[in-house]
């Protein structure tokens, strides 16, 4: 029902496990807005009609008596408090405080924003991240991956906007940063937005529930190529992901930078 009504105003259908929660809050807030606005508007149009000079040549010094508006204002405050405590705060707490643990077998991806491309980096078949050093970072090696390090040899890197793949129905943890200016890593269909801020690495997690091709929007002005900073990724079945991962890992991400 909620999904249907939101799609009528153009909302993209969600594609992650927590999307329904976010959409639910969006829906209930809009319901409150709608009720308030229609209430105001009805009162307003009636007042304009009824109390136009031609209909009511002499104004009433006192106007509205009683405390109805006070009750309404208290009502608005109560509804806002319920939305806040009942929905917004718990959703946020789950998003930032309950990161998937090792037991959840999450796929971990380092996301690096740069002018004007997204980069993704996964630990290779050995499950270890290659050594990274900022002094080695360059336009073609955004992570400063040390090609001499053995652990780096099999890392999976999708650089300069190369699309990457994620398995469906498995937790994904993105560790998001930037090497130059502030970008914002927005996956509208996953209901994920996290600024990519240089000097900070901030995690964001979600569970994709639908397969298909998805976009990454850069949602923070980052310079002349901001509009072109589109990223793409694909959510695929576990088998297809494993196949892709094995191939990429074999080809190696860390070796090409020497």
């Amino acid at each position, binding site marked *: 029902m909620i999904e249907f009504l939101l799609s009528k105003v153009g909302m993209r259908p969600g594609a992650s496990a927590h999307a329904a929660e976010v959409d639910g809050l969006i829906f209930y807030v809009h319901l409150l807005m709608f009720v308030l606005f229609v209430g105001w508007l009805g009162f307003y149009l009636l007042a304009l009609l009824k109390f136009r000079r031609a209909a009511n040549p002499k104004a009433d010094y006192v*106007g509205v008596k009683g405390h109805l508006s006070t009750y309404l204002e208290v009502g608005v405050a109560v509804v806002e408090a319920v939305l806040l405590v009942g929905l917004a705060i718990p959703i946020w707490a789950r998003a930032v405080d309950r990161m998937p643990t090792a037991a959840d077998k999450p796929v971990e991806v380092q996301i690096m924003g740069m002018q004007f491309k997204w980069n993704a980096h996964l630990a290779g078949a050995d499950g270890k991240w290659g050594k990274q050093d900022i002094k080695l970072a360059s336009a073609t090696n955004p992570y400063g991956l040390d090609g001499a390090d053995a652990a780096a040899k099999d890392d999976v890197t999708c650089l300069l906007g190369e699309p990457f793949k994620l398995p469906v129905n498995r937790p994904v943890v993105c560790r998001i940063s930037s090497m130059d200016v502030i970008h914002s890593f927005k996956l509208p269909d996953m209901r994920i937005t996290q600024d990519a801020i240089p*000097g900070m690495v*901030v995690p964001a997690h979600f569970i994709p529930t639908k397969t298909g091709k998805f976009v990454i929007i850069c949602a923070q002005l980052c310079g002349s190529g901001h509009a072109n900073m589109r990223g793409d990724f694909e959510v695929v079945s576990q088998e297809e992901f494993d196949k892709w991962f094995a191939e990429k890992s074999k080809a190696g991400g860390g070796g090409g930078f020497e």
Partner: protein
Amino acid sequence: MSATHTSTLPQHGQGHSHSHDAHDHHEPNFWHKYVFSTDHKVIGVQYAMSALSFLFFGFLLMLCMRYQISHPGEAIPIVGSLMERVLGEAASGGKMSADLYNSFGAMHGNIMVFLAIVPLVFAAFGNYVVPLQIGAIDMAFPRVNMASYHCYWMGGVTWFTGFFLPGGAAKSGWTSYSPLATVAEFGHSFNGQTALLVGLVLLITSSLLGSANFIATVVQLRAHGMSWMRLPFFVWAQFVTAFLLLLAFPPLEAAGILQLMDNVFHTSFFLPTGLVVGGSQLPVSGGGSPLLWQHLFWFLGHPEVYVLVLPAFGIVAEVIANNTRKPLWGYKSMVYSVIAIGFLSFIVWAHHMYLTGMGTKISTFFQTTTMMISIPSVIILTALFISLWGGSIRFTVPMLFAVAFLPMFGIGGLTGLPLGFNASDIYLHDSYYVIGHFHYVVAPGTMFALFAGVYFWFPKATGRMMNEFLGKVHFWGSLVCMNMVFAPMFVQGFKGMSRRMSDGGAIYFGKDVAYGADPGVLKLNNMILASALLLFVFQLPFIFNFFWSIWNGRKVTSDNPWDATTLDWATPTPPPHGNFLKEPIVYRGPYEYSVPGASRDFTPQDQKDPKG
């Protein structure tokens, strides 16, 4: 209580003992009358004329941008070749480069906020009307007032020079987030961003001088009998606004100077260690914090929203009371609400930063304060709605704008709610939904209040009325077009269209449509452009009406053409230097309309006997 304030002052209103300015005894020459004037009314008009010009300029920038994003990669007709001649390569072939688009975007925002709307709503209307409404002969510090305008003017000129500096005007958004603001034109130490920051320091100086002056004026110069609860609501709104400006701007002034150091002398206040830009390490020491800039910016940025809104509430309240012919409903709760908004507006700023990586505790604090501040806003708006009930409503042109303000501002305010909850903000953040939200607050919101104010006080300032027919054309055209411009943005936001895209989002909604993307969203760009152009056409009657009426409008037959109650209408028309012919004494509250038993349907504040 205020008797002690005014009794120590010389009685300027009676035309003698002008100790502060010997020129008053002569007819002042052009320079003293219009440029170096210390008269609050002249300064108010200076602010109004400058700010209206900037408003128009900011609107033109936006029209160019809207055309370009509707027609990505195509030359802009007529204006394009002109832009190429003035701005050179950035507009080669009559097309805006992405950099130029970003420049126009940043300058549209900055000009509208700092050079157009705030100076209009606070400095222009505040300067002209506040001293009149409290029964003062001028502002408390007339020369400081003049300095304030001159700083403002220099700030505006400094910004304008940015367009002609290497790399063009500032292009990092009106928010100037570091490190982008520093690295965007790293090769040139004196670039558009430098001009923006230098201008900003001048504008903040102007604002600080002005706000201190407003506070002193309202505290010290109220007429005999003008107690706090007899102040017109407009004065209350301006008084609280002055505190916001006084306390919120200094952090941004400091931040602006720090970013200036980053840009010109390559310090690292806002630059972290290890920046790699365009493939090479940035030659700065690092160790700074990009988030520090955001905190300092939004510490002003959010109160600034209320700087735009509170005086607009004030204007609307005056016009509604006058045209419903009854007192404002809930005047006291409106005053307390305005004070509450003033305090709360200082502790909501980080709701602009939910998605920087904020933990649950901090975001809960800022969400809670954000919901709290919506309550006094709802109270004020509800009080204004209820004020209509029982009135005898005259639909004059100022009243049309004031009445339309209510639902329009209502939309703007309500659409702030899903952005104020962090979890719904995840999806809507930085989308066109945000653009729709704050433009509803400012354009059909605050700007309609401004238009109401212009039509309302025009006869006091010039002695002539503005043409009513042209006013109505202006009103209905603007109302329809503004909604056609801004309402589709909510839909675009829901569809996931992000702001500040120099191609209008084409790359995300192009042929290779990914999951969830609806290419139909781009068609709305064309509708918005057509509506914006039409909106431009409907501003022409206003511009013509404004200038034509100064010399040819219908002359007012009374000093109080709207039958109003506040002291601004107790002066000669236009008010002379010193404002009042005799010292006004206040006997009652500001909105004594339709008092039972009174001889007329309005009883001015300075009229001793309601039956007189």
